[in-house]
């Protein structure tokens, strides 16, 4: 079979055997693509004349509702069947949903031509469709263990609608995107608590056997983190720049640092499946601390801390979730090759460089380009080595989203 034929077969068949596949592919590809465009925009090589709200709004919106959204769709459409036992979506509905995602991206890019209302409808339809698919089985489940996902998705949909409303009425779209950032941080905490209970305990079991006390993602600490993140996000939405929000951001930072107490489990922390989620939380803690310091009068702009939340926490969380879920549900198992820590390190470096950009030592233009390059490198590594879990046939002869058989 020629390469072309293999690719055609993959895109026509194997890409669609489990919901995470097309959407993780879209997320990773878009991470590379949209960041390259953004870097070119910043450098002045190209311009985006037809975009509502201007290039900054486009960049922020596409990172949240393009890149992260694709990953969320892939994760939820795979996780919800696993949580509740319903059948995963088949090839046709997945194709329709992926088309909807693509239409949304195009609609925003052409919003100057299409008109804002048409672009808004095209873009908002995706999240509505996701809720319509994912919410009913989570709601019907007894007991309703995963209902937080419905709440968070609804909040995300409302902030997204608010964003388009602000664009259409001449309001402040960035305010809504900041609110959406808070919702996404909550979603990360919720999703990682589910994933970590499984993965961290697997790592502990491998090391120490059954004698070991299990790792627990304790709800009180998680709820404190969610409450403080929400308080800061709502405060900053309501009265941007107020010093009260600075203290609230510091509270969120301390609550995230407090969440790390769950993770101090000895040497198993050095394993990648534990260390990378841990780094996500560290990025969130430091990011919120920086935001708090900015609002209370420090030199760094708020956007510095925010990029630690975005490129750092969000980027890393998306990558590790895609690596874990991709490995487990493609039959390949957890990927122990060296590219995983390498790609994660590239994203952390991108986040740190971007965070220092423009206020600390190095000139802004240089740091922004370097950060964009590191981000693109990280995702290119993921695409190169993670592709087999997205496009390849299952190596174990099992079907669809099945996990590989237990090792012993």
């Amino acid at each position, binding site marked *: 079979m020629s390469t072309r034929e293999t690719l055609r077969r993959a895109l026509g068949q194997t890409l669609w055997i489990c919901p995470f596949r097309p959407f993780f592919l879209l997320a990773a590809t878009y991470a590379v693509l949209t960041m390259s465009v953004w870097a070119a925009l910043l450098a002045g090589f190209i311009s985006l004349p037809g975009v509502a709200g201007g290039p900054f709004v486009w960049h922020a919106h596409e990172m949240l509702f393009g890149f992260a959204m694709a990953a969320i769709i892939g994760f939820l459409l795979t996780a919800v069947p696993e949580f509740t036992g319903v059948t995963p979506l088949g090839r046709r509905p997945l194709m329709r949903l992926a088309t909807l995602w693509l239409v949304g991206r195009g609609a925003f890019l052409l919003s100057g031509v299409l008109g804002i209302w048409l672009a808004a409808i095209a873009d908002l339809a995706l999240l509505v469709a996701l809720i319509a698919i994912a919410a009913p089985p989570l709601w019907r489940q007894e007991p309703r263990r995963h209902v937080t996902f419905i709440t968070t998705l609804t909040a995300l949909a409302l902030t997204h609608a608010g964003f388009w409303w602000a664009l259409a009425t001449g309001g402040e779209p960035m305010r809504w995107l900041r609110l959406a950032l808070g919702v996404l941080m909550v979603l990360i905490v919720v999703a990682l608590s589910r994933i970590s209970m499984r993965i961290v305990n697997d790592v502990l079991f491998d090391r120490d056997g059954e004698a070991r006390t299990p790792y627990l993602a304790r709800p009180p*600490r998680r709820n*404190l983190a969610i409450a*403080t993140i929400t*308080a800061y996000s709502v*405060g900053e939405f309501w009265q941007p720049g*107020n*010093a*009260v*929000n*600075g*203290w*609230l951001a*510091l*509270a*969120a*930072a*301390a*609550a995230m*640092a*407090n969440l*790390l*107490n769950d993770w*101090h489990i000895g040497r198993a922390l050095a394993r990648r499946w534990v260390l990378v989620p841990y780094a996500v939380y560290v990025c969130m803690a430091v990011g919120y601390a920086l935001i*708090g310091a900015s609002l*209370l*009068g420090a030199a760094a702009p708020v956007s510095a801390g925010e990029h630690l939340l975005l490129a750092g926490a969000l980027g890393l969380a998306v990558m590790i979730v895609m690596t874990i879920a991709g490995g487990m549900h493609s039959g390949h198992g957890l990927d122990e090759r060296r590219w995983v820590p390498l790609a994660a390190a590239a994203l952390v470096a991108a986040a740190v460089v971007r965070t220092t950009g423009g206020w600390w030592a190095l000139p802004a233009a240089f740091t922004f380009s370097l950060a964009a390059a590191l981000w693109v490198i990280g995702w290119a590594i993921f695409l190169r080595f993670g592709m087999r879990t997205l496009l390849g046939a299952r190596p174990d002869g099992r079907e669809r989203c099945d996990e590989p058989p237990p090792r012993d």
Partner: protein
Amino acid sequence: MTSSIVSPHRRLVEAAAATGRYLWGGMGSLAGLALFLALWEATAQQLGSLILPTPREAFATLAQMLTHGSAWSDLAISARRALAGYALAVLAGSALGLAAGASITASLLSRPIVTLLIGTPPIAWLILALLWFGAGDGTPVFTVFIACFPIVFIGAMQGTRTLDDRLRAVAQAFRLPLGMRLRDVYLPHVVSYLFPGWITALGTAWKVVVMAELLSTSDGVGAALAVSRSQLDTAASMAWIVALVSALLAVEYLLLEPIKRRVEAWREFASSSES
């Protein structure tokens, strides 16, 4: 117990890890503290800084007082008085309380007296102290002593009253030497009652000394608070309050709480071996 065969290096690492875990465990409290500061900031923004300065204004004033003003010496003066009264109360309260607990008659007798001492408000003692000692160190030291004494006394008395008779009998049956009996049988139990009393008393000492100084002396934190009040300087007042509370929190969580955990470690061991 297997701890005796663990190498010193290993023990050091474990102690460092435990300290780290303890300090990092305080992150949740820090989150609560930051939420409180947010509430303070919001209230201050509503009322205006003449009525309530914002946290940042209070912190800035405090930093300024610490670098340029006489804040350190005022804090040292207050600390000296508080610690003097506290030390007297700990010595007298512990000794008398332990003694009183040893005899049922003495406990019966001392109970109403202690109730009376606790019931008398510190401000009443302060008035008496002003009459007896005048404006000087004597007044705040005495007031602190008399406010702390009954707290320590009660803890010490309870400690000896609740000693387990069976443990005493076992110790006697095995003819334990007196030193060992005191150190290994009585002390851990008594200390677990004494210590909470000492901690509560320390907080009381710190609060009472400021009150006493406010009305009786010309130096110390209390006197400085009186000055800032008369000048309607709310920022300085808040700065002093922040300094007082921070000092108390620091001593409590960085010094006393870790010690308390150490001396009460046997309880955890005892309760886990029961099950």
